[in-house]
């Protein structure tokens, strides 16, 4: 892996690997870089499926899929990008199958599809309830087949901007220690989300928003950062994901009395309303005393043992291990938990950011196809479709770009900064700051948001950032020093929290995941049919706006 790459992909989940495959097939010298082995990436934890209008379970077409996505997004999605996603999606899913993805099958041998929330047709292609796992395996198989080099267990820390271009990355080698400069003509961020901002999250420990903050630090704006999706069915106490596929297969949500309470919130779609609607309904039930220990109940009993074992075996295993509950006999206690960041690094539909040579794809990016609320099953599709598109454009651009070089000064400065952190002896270890951040974000920037709480959270984050200036790393060794990298991850999270709060306060309306029932209970298209754009201005976040692209669908009332 000597010398500079044409394309360097940071992050090796579904979006990253799909981008690398595309760049390789275009003839580029491409490498993947990831802080965990590719198959450990959090894409693998996606359960329910991947949306595409294949029409295998009923009549369907990309236009219907687009409309559902636009409406699900509460009209904050950019409709040109959504149309690309839904039109190119079927081809992408077939390609995964042709590569060997082990999808579940219909009776006539096609890819099986199940109903999902806020979708007008059974559109979610699935592999039981381990779809993400199956996709991550097939993509890694294709990476191995092409012998694409992978910088495994390299922690990307700083993007390097030189002469108005991104010229590569500085990364800490976890296995042996040491900072390494890896130059590339184009760099694609595919680092996933930042669910670790919250104490109750479906996200892995690895989901610390690295790519978002790295982009922010080289002057690239983040878009719609207030839009954090709360998934309606996460398992207490830590927020392990229970798939929407359960409800797709017919599961009920019940309050403590056994009432299917969604009748009062989404009388038509019931359990298959959009995620923001259901999370709010659950939180209301819990807040008004109709929950059980802060949970509502997800009831699968009527599906029967055979269906549960065939199609939801992963869910059953998770419930049994983490809650001691066999869903064949008892309902699963669930509650809303932080799940997916609709917001992220601002890109266009080719994955380009505002910095030449820098791309983003997958959850780290905000194109935006999810707007204010993502539909279940659209995230995996986005990783594939826009991972592919970013890989294609990044290699095209790399072919006409001169060799990239990382200036020695960039390396020296970064090394000095790391040395200072490692040499620091007096101060606080990061875990307490990390825990306080996650607890307060949950309390003050959760399913429902109040202006005073958001302002308070801004102050809390500011205080935590001051404390972070004095954190110490206890491990001073070189081999597998994740005490160091976890401290750096906390730095990423803190800056993101500040961006989210600023954007959240500024959006004075309720739209999708951003619900302000106490002061601005309604959507306000006249003033806020636009994206928040946060960039970093010296010491703090600076807010801007950007219009939403409307092609076919004018904003309309949204109910399920």
């Amino acid at each position, binding site marked *: 892996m000597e010398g500079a790459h044409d394309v360097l992909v940071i992050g090796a989940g579904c979006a990253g690997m799909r981008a690398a495959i595309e760049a390789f097939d275009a003839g580029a010298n491409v490498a993947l870089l990831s802080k*965990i082995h590719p198959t450990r990436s959090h894409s693998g934890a996606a359960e329910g499926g991947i949306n595409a209008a294949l029409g295998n379970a009923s009549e369907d077409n990309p236009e219907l899929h687009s409309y559902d996505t636009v409406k699900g997004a509460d009209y904050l999605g950019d409709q040109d990008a959504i149309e690309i996603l839904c039109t190119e999606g079927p081809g992408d899913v077939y390609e995964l199958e042709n590569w060997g993805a082990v999808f579940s099958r219909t009776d006539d041998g096609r890819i099986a599809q199940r109903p999902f929330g806020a979708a007008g047709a059974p559109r979610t292609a699935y592999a039981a309830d381990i779809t993400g796992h199956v996709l991550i395996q097939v993509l890694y198989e294709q990476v191995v087949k092409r012998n694409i080099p992978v910088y495994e267990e390299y922690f990307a820390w700083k993007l390097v901007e030189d002469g108005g271009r991104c010229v590569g990355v500085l990364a800490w080698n976890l296995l042996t220690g040491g900072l390494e400069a890896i130059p590339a003509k184009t760099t694609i961020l595919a680092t996933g989300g930042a669910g670790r901002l919250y104490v109750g999250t479906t996200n892995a420990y690895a989901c610390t928003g690295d790519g978002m903050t790295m982009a922010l630090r080289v002057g690239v704006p983040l878009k719609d950062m207030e839009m954090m999706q709360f998934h309606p069915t996460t398992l207490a106490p830590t927020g392990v994901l229970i798939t929407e596929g359960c409800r797709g297969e017919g599961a009920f949500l019940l309050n403590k009395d056994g009432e299917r309470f969604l009748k009062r919130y989404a009388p038509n779609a019931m359990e298959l309303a959009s995620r923001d609607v259901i999370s709010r309904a659950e939180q209301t039930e819990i807040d008004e005393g109709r929950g059980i220990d802060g949970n509502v109940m997800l009831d699968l009993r009527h599906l029967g043992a055979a269906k549960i074992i065939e199609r939801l075996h992963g869910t059953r295993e998770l419930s049994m291990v983490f809650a001691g509950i066999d869903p064949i006999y008892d309902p699963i206690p669930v509650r809303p938990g932080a799940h997916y960041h609709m917001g992220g690094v601002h890109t266009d539909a080719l994955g380009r950011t505002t910095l030449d040579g820098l791309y983003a794809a997958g959850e780290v990016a905000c194109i935006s196809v999810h707007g204010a609320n993502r539909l279940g099953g659209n995230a995996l599709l986005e990783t594939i479709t826009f991972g592919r598109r970013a890989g294609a454009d990044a290699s095209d651009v790399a072919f006409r770009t001169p060799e990239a070089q990382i200036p020695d000064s960039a390396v020296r400065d970064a090394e000095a900064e790391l040395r200072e952190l490692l040499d620091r002896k007096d101060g606080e270890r990061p875990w307490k700051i990390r825990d306080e951040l996650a607890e307060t974000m949950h309390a003050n920037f959760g399913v429902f948001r109040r202006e005073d709480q958001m302002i308070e959270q801004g102050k809390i984050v500011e205080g935590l950032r001051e404390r972070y200036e004095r954190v110490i790393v206890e491990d001073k060794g070189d081999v597998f020093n994740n005490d160091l990298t976890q401290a750096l991850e906390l730095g990423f999270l803190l800056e993101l929290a500040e961006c989210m709060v600023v954007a959240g306060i500024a959006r004075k309306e309720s739209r999708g995941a951003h619900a302000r029932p106490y002061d601005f209970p309604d959507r306000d298209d006249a003033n806020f049919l636009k994206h928040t754009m946060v960039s970093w201005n010296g010491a703090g976040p600076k807010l801007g706006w950007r219009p939403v692209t409307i092609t076919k669908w004018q904003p309309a009332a949204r109910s399920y």
Partner: protein
Amino acid sequence: MKVALKIWRSNAETGERALREYEVEAPEWVTLLDVLDVIKDRHDGTLAFRKSCRMMICGSCGMRMDGAAVLACKTRMYDMVQAGHVPVISAMGNLPILKDLVVDMDPFWAKFKAVNPYLKTGYEEPPPGREFRISQKRMNAIQKEALCINCGACVSECNAMESDPDFLGPQALAKAMRFVGDPRDAGRVDRLEDLNGKNGIWQCTRCYFCNERCPKGVDPRDAIAKLGAESVKEGIDRDMGAKHAKWFVTSAKTTGWLRETELVPHTQGIVETIKQTRFALALARRGKVPPPFPPHVAKDVKEARLLYDLVQEQGRAGYEGIVQGEAALAKLAHGYREGERDPYGEGSFPRPYIAGEEATAS
């Protein structure tokens, strides 16, 4: 509750290795991974272990507890604490230790890559712009193998790899079966040829530790058995292991029992047999081997033959003939037994209803 652990700390840089004991306060719901986190956060930031999803799907946190491989995130601590047991945590076996609980996974991935773990196209093309048409029943053949999360627990426990590190091992072979059993794959016979090579399937000692320790129910040993059956079905039987297996069948269908005396020549060939004549005679003197002539025919040999014919008739000569053990099936269904309890019986959660309507579920 108070949770106590002993952890084998080790440092590849300094060569130090020591068993340290920790006791921490933790909630009752914690897993082993949660406890390690508490230790790293509040007691010793130098403790190294891998983690990511904490929901049994990323495969990062394979390690040993009391000498047997586990996924730390899947291991709940409550019962152990109640029993007063202080488990010993150490790095996985059969892989070099880098630091504490972190092993070098390179040898693991080298084996993974050695089986060409990707679909080989060309056997049959899918309809243009569409998927291959395959029944769920066909895909079920590789359902268990496709569950593998590459955690390394099976490799850690593999006795054959311990004696011969070149053996491909349970994970790579389960991955190989995932393709051999895939009707879309064009490389089936080539793969089987390769897998019958020096470090291939017949090196497995059938200790079943991989099945026992796999946290996902992949059952790698069963996958290896399927590969063996497929090989013999395809006439790839040059390995002693294949010949050995074939002789079992021949022996059973002709005389209804295993004629061990003939096993050696049929498995290892004439030259090897002559070399072992002295050993065989010594065994015979002590009454350990019955005389080969005249062959003893079992009383119910007809049943053995009928059984053989039945298997042939049903076309179960290859992987389909590998009957999953009851333990394996039970693991997959997590011990579910039909009719054990009424989900709506007394003491159960109330039946769902919609306010103002009749009960909605039966």
